[in-house]
């Protein structure tokens, strides 16, 4: 897995609440049997009309917004367990998603793909939206070691929570499969004592 240590970049705002994984990547694109190509269809039906033309009012299509940080409304990633959603966001070029709330499965899927979900307070989120709206060149600094996110120009900073184990995995680029395989003896011993 790709490491994540720190990132300083501009952000793309998506001020919509309850963005579900069907919007992130619609089900009709889940027929692939590999992980490639999902970025093209990220937010497909919000980004493009039926003829495949870009919708001008959608932030990802607006030139003034760019960067590797996606800032989204409350309860991001609800709905289906499809990991294709995390693959699509990562493949499009985002490395961090910021929201005031993440759905559990999406959060886990992101962490397993080196995409960092940063949960901030509703107040900080609204400051972010305001700052990006005022100046799309606003720089954000995300520091995983210190578990902090900073609006550089405004000198506004907030700490975020992350599971200590997952933090270590991201900082070192390790993933869960290697870890679990290293525990197979323990798992076999558990199976032996399992009575029911």
């Amino acid at each position, binding site marked *: 897995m790709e490491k994540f240590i720190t990132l300083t970049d501009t952000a793309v705002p998506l*001020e*919509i*609440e*309850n963005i*579900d994984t*069907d*919007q992130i990547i*619609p*089900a*009709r694109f*889940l*027929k*692939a*049997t*590999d*992980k490639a190509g999902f970025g093209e269809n990220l937010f497909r*039906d919000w980004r493009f009309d*039926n003829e495949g033309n870009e919708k001008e009012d959608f932030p990802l299509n607006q030139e003034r917004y760019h960067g590797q940080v996606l800032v989204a*409304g*409350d*309860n991001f990633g*609800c*709905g*289906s*367990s*499809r*990991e*294709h959603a*995390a693959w699509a966001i990562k493949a499009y070029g985002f490395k961090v998603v910021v929201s005031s*709330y*993440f*759905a*559990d*499965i999406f959060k*886990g*899927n992101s962490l*397993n*793909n080196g995409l960092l979900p940063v949960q901030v307070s509703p107040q900080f989120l609204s400051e972010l939206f305001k700052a990006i709206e005022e100046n799309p060149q606003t720089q954000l600094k995300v520091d995983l070691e210190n578990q902090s996110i900073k609006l550089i120009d405004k000198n506004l900073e907030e700490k975020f929570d992350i*599971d*200590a*184990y*997952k933090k270590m995995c991201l900082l070192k680029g390790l*993933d*869960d*499969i290697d*870890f*679990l*395989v290293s*525990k*197979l003896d*323990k*798992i076999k011993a*558990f*199976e032996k004592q*399992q009575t*029911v």
Partner: protein
Amino acid sequence: MKKTLFDKIWDAHVVESIPNGPDILYIDKHLIHEVTSPQAFQELKDRNIPVFRPDKIVATADHNTPTENQHLPVKDLLSRKQLKELTQNCEENNITLYGLGHPYNGIVHVMAPELGITQPGMTMVCGDSHTSTHGAFGTIAFGIGTSQVAQVFASQSVLVQKPKKLRVNVNGKLKNGVTPKDVILYIISELGTNSGTGYFCEYAGNVFEEMSMEGRMTVCNMSIEMGARGGLIAPDKTTYNYVEGREFAPKGEAFEKLKIYWESLKTDEGATFDQEYSFEAEAIEPMVTYGTNPGMGIKISQAIPENESKSSGKALAYMGFTAGESLIDKPINYIFIGSCTNSRIEDFRIAANYIKGKQKAKNVNALIVPGSRQVAAQIEAEGLHTIFEEAGFQLRQPGCSACLAMNDDKIPAGEYCVSTSNRNFEGRQGQGSRTILASPLTAAATAIAGKIVDYTQNLN
């Protein structure tokens, strides 16, 4: 220490707790399907790791399958390729597959319980968020992403933080015509779509105790729609009677022995929850959704509430509704009875009982999709197929179908569909489709009337 039902099952499956980190949780049954497994199989191949416990995995094809002519090669080439990969992966790894056409084939959350694969006290996972369904048996069951599917392939375990505990109590007497689907839609409309995030939810109270297993599955199925990773109900006589005698359920002495253990799977008196809510059964009515998430639901007799938020405005604009209006008498051209929420025999009995002797309205396309081959066979055995066909409903072959519209069963853009599925997200049933979630009874009544009706007005 006093323990909840959830604690008892969880604690019995922890291989190791990592300090300040997740638990290694042992998984008793891993269910897989064609859409979320191929990349996981590839991951193992790339690392040259074998599947650790193939005998604890069961596969089915359900999400990306046609509901017509299942005996013919699948027309859509990408779908055919995905199904072929599932078959190959299962063959190469000695995994039991109930593929298209097999008598045990069906939606993963319908076929596993009906075959007795799902049993109380187990831990179960599947690369599908509605795995919460199996909690109806007093099982810890939850959806996982594809990376975790690969973890379970490699170690029969997942790394997961123990969730917090939530209990939702519903006590009292349900009104005539109120179904389990209405109960769960009501709970979600009251609590919202993220109230359960970070929690596992136990449903308690006489309303759940009196429900059939089919009803309990409908309730637990939608736990994820309030954000909860899973939901569960303590096993009781209803559970044991359902499980006993099923194909893969333990038999004879083994069953009796297990039953003694299952009887201990109850929340201890005085055990604490991190959060608890209580509702009165009498307050619940048939429910419909008016927006683009399952929390945007109202009693069928109510008007769409005012809400100033930008997201709510976006949802109403998508649906073509305005705050303050009622959904009653809205013309509807599509209804869908199916999905892992409502495609079990009881759902079709309820629908058929209402439809019997009536005709669907001319404007309505009514689609009935059983959850499994076994449910389809039961529909035929009970003669329900005749009722549906005579009323002008299309009875299809099993699968997820129009719930997520990966196959040809799509609702056209701009059209409303009263659907017994679980998600009313934008475009969920096809690009531009507008979903109104409801019970099988509401869907059946809508099909007959050609518009949304409050059928309770006609009940005794």
